[in-house]
């Protein structure tokens, strides 16, 4: 790849701090070239959204620019008066926010919202009308009937996101910043949106910055990648270099944590947590979690060192030194877990509905004792309803569910205490499933005290054992949920269920609210618990790539029906149903290291 001569957008030593002084972004330097997509990868709290907004000259309330420059064709945006900046935004600089549902005005039709972007920046009405037609064509909305007269809520999530992308591209901007625009979308829609963005950028020579926590998505789209950790760029370079031969230990850890849709592997999470702003260590901010760290790392912030001649640099002292920084990125392959033929849960001919609207049709599945069955489907496929029928949260169903050879009643209040105890449910979002007013100890003790009438000391011991078994420190018992990270919270949620010794755990999208490195450790935790406690799992997910890492059997659901089921290898390697084939095709994969 020949390096284009001048960058369109140049970030120089940008520092953004809270008004009280804590630095959120520290000394960030980046170049974005015309016609190129720069992927900006980072986990929650890394400062990626703050950086994305800074690229269009904006800081959120409570933050301020504390140094450096963001230059568009050499002009520092941060020095421009607000009026000039407003003229640039939308015409030369465009921003696509994360959630289209909140970015579009819900009470205005799509047409006027699109035209406004054009007329504000000097197009006359006739001109604008032509351009709107062209835009719809470009983002693939032209085939949607009456799209211009539709209100945002009448469009699907993917269509809404296309509309915001159309708005961003309306005035043919030179720079476009996309902040996780596909996060809420299913994989097929995500793929189409990504393709649209890629095409538009290369066709019009736009310099694009694509911000995401999803390494695989960035790998699909980006030409170059910058990895953000704790407010600093720790590695930057061509996508193939960064993902193919990562030079920073953090990048390597991140890549090891990403599940692959094509192979079963042990996922490796990273120990520890990213430092919070204000509590970042002196020296390399990754040093506390880094397996390679030496005293020199803690002494001073490492400079960006060149890892190769093509501009691949990393903020690590070991880059280019004799001591090899090349840990293996290649994850360990997994052996399949043997399971018995004895089924712990048998669902047969399950139909469920909300009110009079049917949502599940003729669902049948079997979970072998000690095994893990994954249910895969996109939002609206009915997979959560299925889980809630099984645990008795949703009562409006017919058919049979046999659990340990006993037929279950629909509602949880009609089931025996023993049935309820042995069939536990882990919720999707650990930020919502823990009562914020209870201490961690109290949260875990609640089901223990409810199911087993133990004495206080026995109950306390059970609680501590459960907390220890999910690899959390027992000291956490007196903390409260808001003092814990997302991964820790999800472990607490799992400890709650483990404390009452269930035989089957229904896990409903338990990793979808977590960062990828945290997701990896939660999945590994579940695998370990499964082996240690002889647990059976029903693992519900929209993330096909995770399935291989945990399950032996898989069901693919669509519109409330099972479209395909069978052993994981058979279904994922050679999907028969057209829908599962599309799913497998559209799931993002890296072009980088994994193919080797």
């Amino acid at each position, binding site marked *: 790849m020949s390096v284009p001569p001048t960058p369109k957008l140049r970030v120089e030593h940008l520092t953004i701090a809270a008004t009280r002084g804590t630095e959120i972004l520290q000394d960030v330097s980046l170049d974005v070239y015309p016609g190129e997509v720069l992927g900006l990868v980072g986990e929650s*709290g890394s400062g990626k959204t703050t950086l994305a907004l800074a690229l269009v000259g904006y800081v959120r309330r409570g933050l301020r620019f504390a140094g450096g420059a963001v230059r568009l064709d050499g002009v520092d945006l941060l020095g421009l008066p607000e009026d000039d900046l407003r003229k640039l935004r939308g015409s030369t600089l465009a921003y696509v926010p994360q959630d289209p549902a909140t970015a579009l005005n819900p009470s205005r039709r799509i047409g006027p919202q699109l035209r406004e972007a054009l007329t504000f920046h000097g197009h006359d009405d006739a001109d604008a009308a032509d351009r709107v037609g062209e835009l719809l064509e470009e983002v693939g909305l032209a085939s949607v009937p009456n799209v211009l007269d539709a209100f945002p809520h009448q469009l699907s999530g993917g269509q809404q996101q296309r509309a915001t992308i159309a708005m961003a591209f309306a005035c043919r901007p030179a720079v476009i910043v996309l902040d996780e625009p596909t996060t809420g979308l299913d994989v097929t829609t995500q793929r189409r949106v990504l393709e649209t963005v890629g095409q538009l950028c290369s066709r019009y020579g736009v310099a694009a910055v694509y911000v995401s926590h999803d390494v695989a998505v960035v790998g699909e789209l980006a030409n170059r990648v910058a990895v953000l950790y704790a407010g600093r760029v720790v590695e930057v370079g061509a996508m193939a270099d960064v993902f193919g031969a990562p030079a920073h230990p953090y990048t390597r850890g991140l890549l090891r944590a990403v599940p692959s849709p094509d192979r079963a592997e042990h996922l490796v999470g990273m120990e520890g947590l990213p430092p919070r702003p204000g509590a970042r260590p002196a020296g390399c901010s990754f040093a506390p979690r880094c397996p390679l760290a030496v005293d020199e790392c803690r002494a001073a912030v490492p400079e960006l060192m060149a890892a190769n001649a093509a501009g691949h640099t990393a903020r690590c002292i070991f880059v280019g030194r004799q001591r090899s920084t090349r840990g293996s990125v290649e994850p360990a392959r997994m052996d399949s877990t043997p399971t018995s033929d004895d089924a712990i849960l048998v669902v047969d001919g399950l139909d469920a509905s909300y009110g009079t609207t049917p949502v599940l049709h003729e669902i049948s599945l079997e979970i072998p004792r000690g095994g893990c069955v994954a249910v895969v489907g996109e939002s609206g496929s009915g997979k959560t309803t299925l889980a809630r029928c099984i*645990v*008795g*949260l949703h009562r409006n169903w017919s058919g049979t569910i046999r659990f340990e050879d006993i037929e279950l009643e629909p509602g*949880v*209040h009609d*089931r025996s*205490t023993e049935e*309820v*105890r042995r069939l536990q*449910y882990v*919720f*999707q*979002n650990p*930020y*919502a*499933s*823990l*009562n*914020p*007013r*209870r*201490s961690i*100890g*109290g949260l*875990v*003790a*609640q*089901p223990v005290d*409810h*199911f087993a009438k133990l004495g206080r*000391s026995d*109950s*306390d*011991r059970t*609680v*501590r054992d459960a907390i220890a078994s999910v690899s959390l420190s*027992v*000291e956490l*018992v*007196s903390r*409260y949920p*808001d*003092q814990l990270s997302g991964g820790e919270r999800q472990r607490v*949620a799992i400890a*709650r269920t483990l404390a009452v010794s269930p035989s089957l755990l229904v896990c409903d999208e338990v990793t979808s*609210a977590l960062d990828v490195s945290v997701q990896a450790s939660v999945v590994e935790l579940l695998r370990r618990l499964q082996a240690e406690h002889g647990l059976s799992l029903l693992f519900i997910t929209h993330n096909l790539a995770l399935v291989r890492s945990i399950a032996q059997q898989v069901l693919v659901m669509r519109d409330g029906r099972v479209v395909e089921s069978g052993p994981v290898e058979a279904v994922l390697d050679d999907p028969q149903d057209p829908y599962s084939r599309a799913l497998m095709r559209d799931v993002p994969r890296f072009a980088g290291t994994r193919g080797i």
Partner: protein
Amino acid sequence: MTADPVAVPRVRRSEFGHVLRNAVRTGRGRVGLGLTLLVLLVAFVGPFFTPYDPTAYITTPFAKPSAIAKLGGDVLGRDVLSRVLDGGWELIVLATTATLLGVALGALAGVYAGYRRGTPDTVVMRAVDVLLAFPQIVFVLLLVSVVGPSAWLLVVAVGLSHAPQVARVLRASTLDVSERDFVKAVEITGVSSGRVMSGEILPNLITPLMVELGLRMTYSIVIIAGLSFIGFGLAPPTPNWGTMINENRIGLTLNPWAAIAPAIMIALLTIGLNTFTDAVTRVALGVDRGEADPPAVASAQVPIAVGAAEETSP
């Protein structure tokens, strides 16, 4: 070694303590709390420092303030200062009792309706609608005029008149909280609905509950003082700020202090309480933040709606 190193605490943390501390740190909160405490001090410590017996006749009717009577005399020549000092505690005690009763009743009905939904919800909320059709003061007057004035009836009547409004606010908050996953997580262990309400939902309603208490308290004071003013409240000759305004308004030109001093006390108390409640609400909703507190750890939770700002005057 197996000695238990860490006991497992079951205690719940009160979020309200945190909100309260932050509210006191805001300017609004300081002013409100200061005014309230000032009036409470006068009302509860004042009775021990009255220069004269508040019911004794010590000067001429509506005498100007003098060395004998610092704030002059009232309609019957009693010492205004002594009556102001002694005339608050009963009012405040009655108002507090009435408020506690009303908020408790309303919260019970609201949480029950909001959690159970369906028929219980419909029955409770329609009953609330009917009660709300009467203006609060008319409702209390109705009860008091039927049975005749007495302290306990005043408490019950004022309390009952608060209940429907509190029920409505708490029902709305309950609807929100009961949809959270942590409530579902406890429900699917088969715990009874009573324990779900008391263990999971109520602790998360402390803030709206406290805001309601503060708000209803000011209304109680105004209503009880108002009833005394029109003669349906506390009986003479014991002094009370509401009655004093009424008795002494005819002498406003002769000794204005006789009517204005008790009026100022009521005004300070209600303004103070209202301001402080307002500060608490703003902190709870995240509009204001206590200055000295670091921002809370990022959390994906939406603050629980505090539905207090719907009415501004009783």
